[in-house]
């Protein structure tokens, strides 16, 4: 945890002092991010979604969203965008209190969500810098075809790399890229080991709250670096220790040592009431053993590894494999498999009001997964960063009823066993 805080603080400090140090700053998105490629040009990535979620956690998002709405943005649209625009309108002060640098390049890696496209058109209005667009085809038929890979590789060669060269003044160094991708692949092994440790009972990690808090995020900005390698090695050792000691996950409320329910969760979390939300699970002894949101930055547990021997093709496959780029049947398959593999009691969908990319179709997913696995699904509705759409009492009530149902189901099973 200390190491994580240091790395993040360091990153934001580098960003804040980027201009003085002659570093180039690239704004880009988490899904389908080209971290290794950016780092190979010594550029610093900055992720607007991460700023938005940090603003949510720091209770600033409400104000930012209101600011964006005052500037003509609709109540109905993605609140991440509005939070980012609002933050920009209010001076672009980052999570550590330092002013964030303006971008030298907007890297629109358009993976799994159409809103990204609009988001950067909106940023482009305010920043006088080039935009590099990487269009990632959607896995509409649940597969990646050679045509799709070819299309992305061509875009990397003709659009992305030349713009990086132009902005940074550095030549593309494929060996440097290979080296960073090799590091990524090693860190990915440790990351997957940590995620899969949740197959144990009790699970030593929480793969949703913990997953987004200290397991996943460092992967985005730091993947490929020595620091990330070290971080994931340390994390693995720490989890190994907990596993040997038979301990559950660490939560803000302390150690969770009474695992009662094992859940799979679909959808992003709510950030404005993150701790309160997590506590609702903690209080019931509910541990999330697998989640889909931690796969928006890559589906490593399904076997993907960055492959330095074919760097550009591998980056293409990485981008297309991110969770948000999977079609609905693949998402259903993935969750059903998690339920089996992690022996979950049930699954829960946190439907985000302002996120069409995730939410459209979740009611169908709910029914399909229930039918396929025979495990009960729960459905709650919140928002990512708009505090107006988090009703603590409502969410708590729904969760309590859901857990009661799971307990009853389990009781029935036990009763059946006794009588048979």
């Amino acid at each position, binding site marked *: 945890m200390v190491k994580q805080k240091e790395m993040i603080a360091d990153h934001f400090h580098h960003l804040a002092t980027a201009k003085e140090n002659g570093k180039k700053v690239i704004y880009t998105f988490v899904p389908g991010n080209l971290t290794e490629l950016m780092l190979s040009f010594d550029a610093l990535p900055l992720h607007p979604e991460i700023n938005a979620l940090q603003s949510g956690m720091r209770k600033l998002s409400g104000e930012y969203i209101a600011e964006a709405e005052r500037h003509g943005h609709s109540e*109905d649209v993605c609140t991440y965008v509005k939070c980012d625009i609002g933050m920009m309108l209010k001076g672009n002060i980052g999570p550590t209190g330092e002013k964030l640098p303006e971008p030298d390049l907007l890297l629109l890696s358009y993976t799994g969500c159409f809103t990204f496209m609009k988001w950067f*058109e909106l940023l482009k209005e305010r920043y006088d810098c080039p935009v590099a667009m990487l269009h990632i085809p959607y896995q509409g038929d649940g597969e990646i075809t050679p*045509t799709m890979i*070819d299309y992305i590789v061509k875009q990397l060669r003709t659009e992305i790399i030349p713009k990086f060269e132009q902005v940074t003044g550095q030549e593309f160094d494929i060996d440097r890229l290979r080296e960073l991708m090799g590091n990524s692949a090693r860190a990915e092994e440790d990351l997957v080991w940590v995620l899969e440790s949740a197959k144990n009972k009790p699970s030593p990690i929480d793969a949703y709250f913990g997953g987004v808090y200290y397991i996943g995020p460092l992967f985005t900005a730091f993947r490929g670096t020595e620091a990330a390698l070290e971080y994931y090695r340390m994390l693995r050792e720490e989890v190994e220790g907990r596993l040997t000691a038979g301990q559950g996950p660490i939560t803000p409320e302390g150690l969770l040592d009474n695992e009662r329910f094992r859940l799979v969760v679909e959808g992003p979390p709510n950030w404005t009431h993150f701790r309160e939300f997590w506590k609702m699970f903690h209080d019931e002894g509910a541990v999330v053993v697998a989640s889909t949101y931690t796969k928006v930055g890559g589906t490593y547990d399904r076997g993907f590894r960055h492959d330095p021997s074919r760097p550009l093709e591998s980056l293409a496959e990485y981008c297309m494999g991110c969770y948000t780029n999977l079609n*609905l049947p693949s998402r*259903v398959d993935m969750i059903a498999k998690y339920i089996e593999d992690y022996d979950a009691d049930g699954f829960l969908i946190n*439907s985000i009001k302002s996120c069409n990319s995730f939410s*459209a*179709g979740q009611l*169908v997913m709910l029914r399909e997964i229930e039918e396929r696995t025979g495990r009960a699904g729960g459905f709650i509705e919140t928002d990512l960063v708009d505090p107006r759409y988090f009703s603590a009492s409502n969410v708590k009530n729904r969760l309590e009823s859901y857990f009661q149902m799971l307990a009853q189901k389990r009781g029935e099973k036990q009763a059946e066993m006794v009588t048979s």
Partner: protein
Amino acid sequence: MKNVDEIVERCEELYEDLEYGAVARWKEANPEGAAVGFLPTYIPREVLHAAGVLPVGILGAGDQLEIVKGDAFFQSYICHIPRSVVELGLSGKLDSLDGMIFPSTCDVIRNLSGIWKLQFPDKLSFYFDVPQNFDPEVGGAFYADTLRELLEAMCSLTGRDPKSVDLSASIHLYNENRRLIAKLKALRSEEPWRVPASELYLVLRAGMVLPIEEFSALIEDYLEAVAAREGHEVDNARVLLAGAFCEQPPLTLIRTLERSGCEVVDDDTMLVLRWLGDEVSEEGDPIEALAKAYIAYTGEASCKYVPDGEQKGIQLVRSVRKHCVEGVIFAAPSFCDPALLDRPMLQSALDAEGISYTAFNYAENTGQMQPIREQAGTFADTIKLWGGE
């Protein structure tokens, strides 16, 4: 010569027929053919035509269908069109279709393609991904491959194997249709009293279910009939309707605008009919010709990436100038991210040119027109009193 009222009446019947009787009749008359539905915004209908497939525009059910099952598929904070399309599918109204094409318009339609795969596993569900990279060697090559895949999928339904010349012949028919639509829209802009907006809408909607040959003949008949129409210029406010590129406004909304003193002289409904601003070449490899036309088209739509910030809104401004528009009405479906995220950017482009606008949201089944009537009426009055700029 056919009479205008008869033509419009026929179009209205087609519009209201949610059983898609015209499609069933076409299939009866063409037993070797297939019919495939498509959602907004754009698909290359020429490819379907060449494969012996009737392209059928599924633009939602407007305000005519009670949603019974569709609401169990989508949360309240998702626009209306996917639920009415699901309702149409589950209630058997789309049974005459052999498949569906889902263009890459937005996340909702994208996810609907997956829902279709799960709900109708025996029917073809094709996700049509269009490039957002407009380099002919890159996005153009990807698009040409996608067109070949689409052609193959369509031929798998009919067993046809069209030659290049067949595809070029289909392109020819659609070019002709584009010319007729351009003529019709020009007439609407020049002499709006001859072609009322609601009539134009109905005539174009007929093109969503009729084969292209019949649709072109219908436009010709209509053009001939309205040429003889008696009437005169009315001092209405000339407006442009922007944001209705996917979920369609109910017909009553268009009529309400007409009654409020607004002359809608341009709009972005049914973009599929005029997505390719230019003629597609009828020479050479037809797939390459379609790809080239797509890539070269510089128009704007909320589902299309505009790489250059300086260009955003330029087409809207051009259209305002071309049609002597006095004010823009932004009418977007509620919860439509593409249209609503675009809106502030387009409004800035209008601000820079001093063009006035007003905005509201609708759903395809909006029933309460009073607020819209008042807002549009006030907007029209303001324009007439103080001018649009």
